[in-house]
C-alpha cells in the first residue's frame, strides 16, 4: 500500500497565511519539518510577505499633507465635475462658439446669393474684385463696364457694410448703380471679401 502526500502550491500559500484548516495545516507542518527544501521554500515566501510590511509599511507613518486634511474637512463636497471635465466642456463650448461665429459670418443672408456673387465675381470675364470705400451710391461701385465687383464699403448703418453683386455693364461706370445690394454685418463683409480674395 502506498501513501502519497501532495501539497499543492495553493495549499502551501494558504498554510503560510494561516488559512488552512487545522488538520491539513498539521500535515503540512509535519512535512516541512522533514523536508528541508520545502522548509526553505516556505521561509522564502514568508520573507517576501514580511518584506511588504518592511518596505511599504513606514509610508503610513509619514505626515498627511495639510491640503488633504483641508479637502476632507471642507464643508462642501467637491463639485461633481473635475477640473479636467470642466476644461473639456469649456474647450467644446469655445469651439462651438467659434464655429457658430464663423458659420454666421460666412452664411449668405439670402440663400447662397453672396457666395454665388463671389464666385461670379471671381469667374467673370474680368474677374476683378474691387473693394471700394464709401457709402452706397457715393462713388465707384464698379471698376468699369462688364466688370463684376464686390464692394465692401464703409458702414451703411451701425455695424453694417454693403455687398453688391454687380453693376450694369451697359452703362458708363459713373452711371452705374448696383443691381442688387445686401446689407451684411461689417464682420461678414470683411470675411466675404477675404474669401473672395482667396478664391
Amino acid at each position: 500500500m502506498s501513501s502519497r502526500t501532495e501539497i499543492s502550491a495553493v495549499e502551501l500559500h494558504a498554510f503560510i497565511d494561516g488559512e488552512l484548516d487545522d488538520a491539513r495545516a498539521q500535515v503540512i507542518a509535519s512535512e516541512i519539518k522533514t523536508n528541508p527544501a520545502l522548509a526553505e521554500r516556505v521561509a522564502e515566501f514568508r520573507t517576501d510577505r514580511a518584506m511588504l510590511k518592511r518596505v511599504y509599511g513606514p509610508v503610513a507613518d509619514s505626515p498627511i499633507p495639510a491640503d488633504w486634511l483641508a479637502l476632507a474637512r471642507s464643508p462642501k463636497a467637491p463639485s461633481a465635475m473635475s477640473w479636467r471635465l470642466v476644461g473639456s466642456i469649456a474647450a467644446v463650448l469655445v469651439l462651438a462658439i467659434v464655429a457658430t461665429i464663423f458659420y454666421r459670418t460666412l452664411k449668405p443672408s439670402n440663400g447662397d446669393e453672396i457666395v454665388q456673387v463671389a464666385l461670379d465675381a471671381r469667374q467673370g470675364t474680368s474677374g476683378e474684385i474691387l473693394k471700394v470705400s464709401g457709402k452706397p451710391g457715393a462713388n465707384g461701385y464698379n471698376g468699369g463696364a462688364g466688370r463684376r465687383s464686390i464692394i465692401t464699403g464703409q458702414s451703411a448703418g451701425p455695424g453694417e457694410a454693403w455687398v453688391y453683386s454687380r453693376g450694369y455693364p451697359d452703362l458708363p461706370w459713373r452711371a452705374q448703380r448696383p443691381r442688387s445690394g445686401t446689407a451684411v454685418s461689417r464682420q461678414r463683409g470683411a470675411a466675404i471679401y477675404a474669401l473672395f480674395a482667396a478664391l
Partner: protein
Amino acid sequence: MIDREAFVNALVSQLPHLRRYAVAITGNAALADDLVQDSIERALRQSAQLRELELLPRWLRRILHNLYVDEIRRRQSRGSLQDIMELSDHLELSTPALDGNLAREFVKAMDALSIEHRQILLLVGLEELSYRQIADELEVPIGTVMSRLARARERLRSIMEDGTDSNVVLAPLVVNDES
C-alpha cells in the same frame, strides 16, 4: 445614511493606510499622492453610496484602484506607459535602508508584476485581510483569490531569484511518497 462628520473622521483616519497602499500598488510616490487626492475628492462626492462605515477602507481602495487603472489606460493611449514601468528607481522609501539592495530589488520585482498580482499580494501581506475579505472586496470566488495569490507569490519569487517573469505553473508539490 452615514453621518457626515463620522464619515469625514473615518476618511481622515484612513488616509495614511490609503497612501501606503497607493505607493505600494503604483511604485511611485508622486503618482500615489495624486491618486489619493483624487480618491478623497471622489469619496466625498460619492459618500452617499457607502452603506456602512466599516466598509470604508475597502471602498477607498476600490476607488483608488479604479483611478489607477484609468490612469494607466490614459498613459497607454498616450504611449507613455514606460513612465510607469520605470518608477521603481525613484520610489522614495521613507524606511531606513534596513535591507539595502534587497529592498530595492523587492520594489523592482513588485513593479514587474501585473496590477492584479500586486493587488492580491498587498491585500494579504500589507492590509492583512483574510481570503474571505479579499474575495468580497474583489468580488471573486475564494478559490480565485487562492490561485491568484499563489501565482503572484511564485512569480514574485521567480523575479527575485533570477529576474525572469516567466509563467508560473502551479504544479502539486510532491513532498513525500511512502510505501
